[in-house]
Each structure stands twice: as C-alpha cells, then as structure tokens.
C-alpha cells in the first residue's frame, strides 16, 4: 500500500517522491476458501502411501518503508496456505485460504521437511497452479506421475557407428521432481541431476548407475563428434521395465 506524491516546480522539473506507509506481504481474501484437487499416479497403478500435500503462495514484495522506484529491493514472501494428504489411490484435495496478491501458487507433495515424509519416494513440486482456470473456487490439477526411487542403469551401446565420439549429458530427477502445469509454460525444465560423459570410438558400451523414480523419463542430450560435430540431438528416453533401466544405441 503506498501513497505517491508528485511535485512539479516552476521550471518544469518533476520530482517523484514515493513513500509507502507499510511493508507489503501476501494478503488474503475475506470470505473465500480455495480447493486444490488432483491425483498422483503410480507407475503401473500400484497402491501408494499417504503423501503429505502442502499448498504454498509466493510473491515478491517491497520490504522497505521508503520506496524509490527502481532502487528499492524486493523480497520473496512465501506462505503455507493449506495442507492435506493423499489417499492410497493418489487422490488429494487441499483446502486453502485464498491469496489475493500472489505471483505463484504451488504444491509440494511428499516434502522432505514434512514430518509425514515418505522415504524412498520423490518430492513433487507442482508449479503454475494459478495459471489454471479457477472453477467455482476450485483448481483441478492434471494427474502427475510418481514412482518409488529405485536403482536403475543407463546403458549406452555402440552398434553401428564405429568411428565417432559420443559426448552426452543425462538430465533426470532423483529425489525432487518439478512439474509445471501451466499450459502456456515454455521455459526450460529445471532438472535435479545431470551426468555427462563421452564414449570414444574404441569403446563399445558405457553404463551409468542412477537413482531415479521408477518409470520416469530421462532427457538425453548427445553429440557425435568426428572432426567437428556431426549430429546433435536432445531426446527423451523412456523407462524400460524389462531391463529395469534405459538404453541408447547408436
């Protein structure tokens, strides 16, 4: 909340003095509650533990009493707005208070800081909720996948190409998985883990050990090099249930 005073002297110079009466922070609507509903789905539809589900609102606010446009730093304000837990079928519904000046609303499912955190399962950060349509004070979150964190292998096999060097980068989520449900989101996903390496022409295979939620897809960026980059590609490699892992052949 601020009061702005604009003064103009006889020579036409404009001075802007802006003062704010109090610091700004997240505030909440009177007479309103929101419902955030959704489902987490296990790999192969197995029964799930009861995950804690927390809803947060956040925003950037000016914290200084004196506000000078462009000079006063802002500070992030994050509030817990509601909490619940999921059912064995993975359904959850969080009743929250209703923020009125937030930038983001997001969910943390199975957060590590929560006392009900379930070991061996990843934490899901579901972002972009406030970009979804609000129907009758209810956000309906698309179903998101979750899998138990397991040991898996990523195998790279040289089959037909015998002369090029393979340079690769694996990107995947291990214990924290970020999901943006904003349909208009075009930014890059933040991957928790990255492993890079190369396979020289005389090497026929490389095996990388991973800890990854069962069923998750891996992002695989690679280049084939031989006196310069011949091929460059960024692909998704799905989980292979039979081999309990991932495989790339070239």
């Amino acid at each position, binding site marked *: 909340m601020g009061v702005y005073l604009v003064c103009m002297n006889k020579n036409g110079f404009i001075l802007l003095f802006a003062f704010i009466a109090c610091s700004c*922070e*997240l*505030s*909440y*609507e*009177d*007479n*309103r*509650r*929101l*419902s955030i509903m959704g489902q987490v789905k296990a790999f192969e539809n197995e029964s799930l533990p009861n995950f804690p589900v927390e809803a947060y609102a956040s925003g950037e606010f000016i914290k200084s009493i004196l506000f000078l446009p462009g000079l006063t730093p802002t500070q992030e304000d994050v*509030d*817990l*707005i*509601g*909490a*619940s*837990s999921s059912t064995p079928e993975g359904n959850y519904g*969080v*009743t*929250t*208070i209703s923020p009125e000046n937030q930038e983001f609303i997001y969910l943390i499912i199975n957060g590590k800081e929560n006392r009900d955190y379930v070991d061996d399962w990843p934490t899901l950060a579901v972002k972009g909720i406030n970009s979804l349509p609000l129907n*009758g*004070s*209810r956000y309906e979150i698309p179903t998101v996948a979750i899998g138990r964190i397991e040991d898996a292998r990523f195998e790279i096999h040289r089959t037909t190409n015998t002369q090029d060097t393979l340079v690769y980068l694996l990107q995947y989520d291990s214990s924290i998985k970020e999901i943006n449900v904003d349909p208009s989101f075009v930014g890059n996903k933040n991957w928790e883990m990255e492993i890079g390496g190369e396979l020289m022409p005389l090497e026929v295979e490389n095996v990388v050990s991973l800890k990854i939620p069962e069923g998750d897809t891996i992002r695989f960026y690679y280049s084939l090099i031989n006196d310069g980059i011949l091929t460059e590609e960024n692909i998704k490699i799905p989980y292979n249930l039979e081999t309990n892992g991932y495989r790339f052949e070239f």
Partner: protein
Amino acid sequence: MGTDLSFKKGILLVSLFFNLVSLKAQMGKKEMDDNVLVEFGISYMLPKAYGDNFLSQGYDIRNGINVDGRILVAPKWFVGAQWSQFKGDVIDMEKVGAIEKSGITHIYAVATYTILGNDKQVSVRTGFGAGYVLYRHKQSTTKFMDDGFSVAANLALCYRFSNSLGVFVKLEHYWDFLNIDTAPELETFFRNAQIFAPSIGIKVYTF
C-alpha cells in the same frame, strides 16, 4: 482435549448453580422490586461447536465472554443487545486452511420473554437474537476475516439476591450462516456453524 475438560467443568458448574438456586428458592422467597427497567449481564461462556462444519472439526475453541443489556418494553418482555466473543486455535489445518487462530464475535439484537415474573427471586427467561457474526483470522503475519448472519436462542435461569444484583446461568445456541465462497463440495462445511454455549454470570438491575 483441554476444551472438552473445561466444557465438562462448565456443565458441572451450571448444574451446581441450578441445584443451589433451587435449594435457596425452597428455603424461602424474598419479595423484590418488580419495576426493573433495565438490566445488564456479563457472563463467562464455555462455547462448544458441534456438527460437520469447519469450526467443530478444525478448531480447539477457548472459553469466552458474553455481555448483554436489555430494557423492559412490555410486561415480561425485554429487548436489547448482546455481544459475545471467544477465540479458537486451529488444530486441523487440513479442514480449515492455513489459519493459526481466530477470534469469533457475535452481535445480536435480542428479545427476551420472562417465563417467571421479575418480582420473583428466581426467574426463568427465554430469548431470541438475530445479528452479525465476525470471524477474524490470523495467518502467520496477516489477518483477514469471514462474516455473515447469525441467530441465537437461549434459556436463562436468574437468581436475584438483592434488588440490583443477581447471578444467572444461560444455555445458548448460535447458528452462524457465513458468506464464504468456496468449492461446491465445501459450501455446507464452511457456510454453517453451530455452537452450544452455556455461560454463568452476574446481572445488574436498574429501575
């Protein structure tokens, strides 16, 4: 758990009061001035929410205070105003959202009918109130509120031990109808609250 215990203690106190008044009334009646024009009451209340609503399922309700003032408008009929306040700590965030605690205020216009006359030491009254309810919530550092319409009904047993002073117990019930917008499946849960509130207090009579 703490609230349940204090509520039971309150009920015990109310029962004790009824027994004492009944005993005193049997021992002998003292005639009182019957031209009471105005009376004021202040009481300590032990509210208890019940039913399938956010207040009963999400809060540990603390004891509160009830203040009222009435004026005689017709034989046996008083009208006036009543204010009450109590607080509640959220014990189940899953039910109500991330609220830390709330202060609940009721303000009513009230009408009271005296079943037993004012000239008696012991009188029994019943009353009805209609008015406004305000839930002021505190979330960490921020405050916001819910409000709505509320009605109340009560039954009170009063004992005057002098012309201008008395004690009373009151059994009161509040029905709150809040203006909360929420998802359709939560509307009933958030828009209605029922509170039973016995109280014990003192009354001042003026003529």
